[in-house]
């Protein structure tokens, strides 16, 4: 059973190695003549005049939080979806109830304006 996962482990290692090797190759082959102008952050020719890690809109946080909730729902749906043809109508109705509660929450956040971007 578990030996099926060995190729996956090796493949993940290879995937990382390809990126690492390519970047190392770039360091070996590329020229390196840095100066302070070249290394300053790009800002259309201006000198950078404040820290770039600035405040950002709170809605990005909101999206992240909502994402976690919905992603968990998807994780809950996975096992249900696989065995649905065996658990039949009872399983279907209980998941309908669960999704119904989720939809009520979804309508609430919609009405509250959490999904608005103007």
């Amino acid at each position, binding site marked *: 059973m578990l030996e*099926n*996962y*060995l*190729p*996956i482990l*090796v*493949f*993940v290692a*290879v*995937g*990382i190695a*390809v*990126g690492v090797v*390519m*970047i190392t*190759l*770039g*360091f070996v*082959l*590329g*020229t*390196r*003549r*840095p100066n302070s102008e070249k*290394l*300053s*952050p*790009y*800002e*259309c020719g201006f000198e*950078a005049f404040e820290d*770039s*890690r600035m405040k*950002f*809109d709170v809605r*990005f946080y909101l*999206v*992240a939080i909502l*994402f976690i909730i919905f*992603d968990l729902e*998807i994780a809950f*749906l*996975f096992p249900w*979806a*696989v*065995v*649905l*043809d065996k658990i*039949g*109508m009872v399983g*279907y109705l209980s*998941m*309908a109830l669960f999704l119904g509660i989720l*939809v009520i929450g*979804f309508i609430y956040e*919609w009405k509250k304006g959490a*999904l*608005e*971007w*103007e």
Partner: protein
Amino acid sequence: MDLLMSLWEWLGENLVVVQILIKIVIIVAPLMLCVAYFTYAERKIIGYMQVRIGPNRVGPKGWLQPIADAVKLMFKEIIIPSGANKTLFLIAPVLTLGPALAAWAVFPFGDGLVLSNINAGLLYLIALTSVGVYGVIISGWASNSKYAFLGAMRSAAQIVSYEIAMGFALVGVLVAAGSLNLGEIVRAQEGEGGLFNWFWLPLFPLFLIYFVSGVAETNRAPFDVAEGESEIVAGFHVEYSGMPFAVFFLGEYANMILISALTSLLFLGGWLSPFNGWPLLGPMFDWVPGIVWLFIKTAFVGFFFLWLRATFPRYRYDQIMRLGWKVFIPITIVWIMVVGLAVVFEMPWWFD
């Protein structure tokens, strides 16, 4: 030939890792070639759509253009901005390319032609494609540049939003197929009706949503606000040059090919012939190997990525978020329940 076979068996018994590595090279090398020539196809196709020829100088008809690009990027200077977090700055591109390659570990190229036949295949794919967003957000943070930061924020919010719609669409496929194993999902689409047995028909809304979400996930036009050239230059990878940029670029195109291949696997019957079981055409195309069908389907879906880019103007950011949250998520939830009913009542043709 016999010698090679016995050598192969000896490897399987004594040096399994070497055998696996050979298999991985057989998958990754053609994949990298496909990625390189996908960029060439993009420039050519968009060129012709805009009534010009596209690259035609390097090699016959420009066929060596991707190789020339790769060599050029290899010799470019790697600039690490003075205020950047060096380690994170270099890890980010690897985190974009790595998952896009590793996802192919569970991908069935034909009946039984798969590196690792695990039952949690789809779960593994979702897990890996979710890692891609880390590359984007880490690069935006580590660059210490305003454009990169803004681009990363936008792109991360967009990717996670569409990931929900994508996940729900996948749940629809799971309900229809009743298995997480990608091979089983394709076999569930086999039938006398050929292409009408595939899941694109009963799951049509989910098919469209999966593809459009895939376009948004990979930050491609018309959802490319993350790198909208006219406003934030190149978005999260504005500070990247040389090989780190090339790795980002490869990751983006590898992801596009992965999404195309997954769309053809989950909705377009994978390696199955579209004429399977048809009276005249069925036997006529029996000799075509499954992997050829898979390649044709993937190229077909991949073409749509390029077509969309040549056709549509860029979406506004609030419109993107509205489409993801207010249109796609409600549709997918409703359609999961519809498909669930069809499965419970064993609707003829697809689910009996």
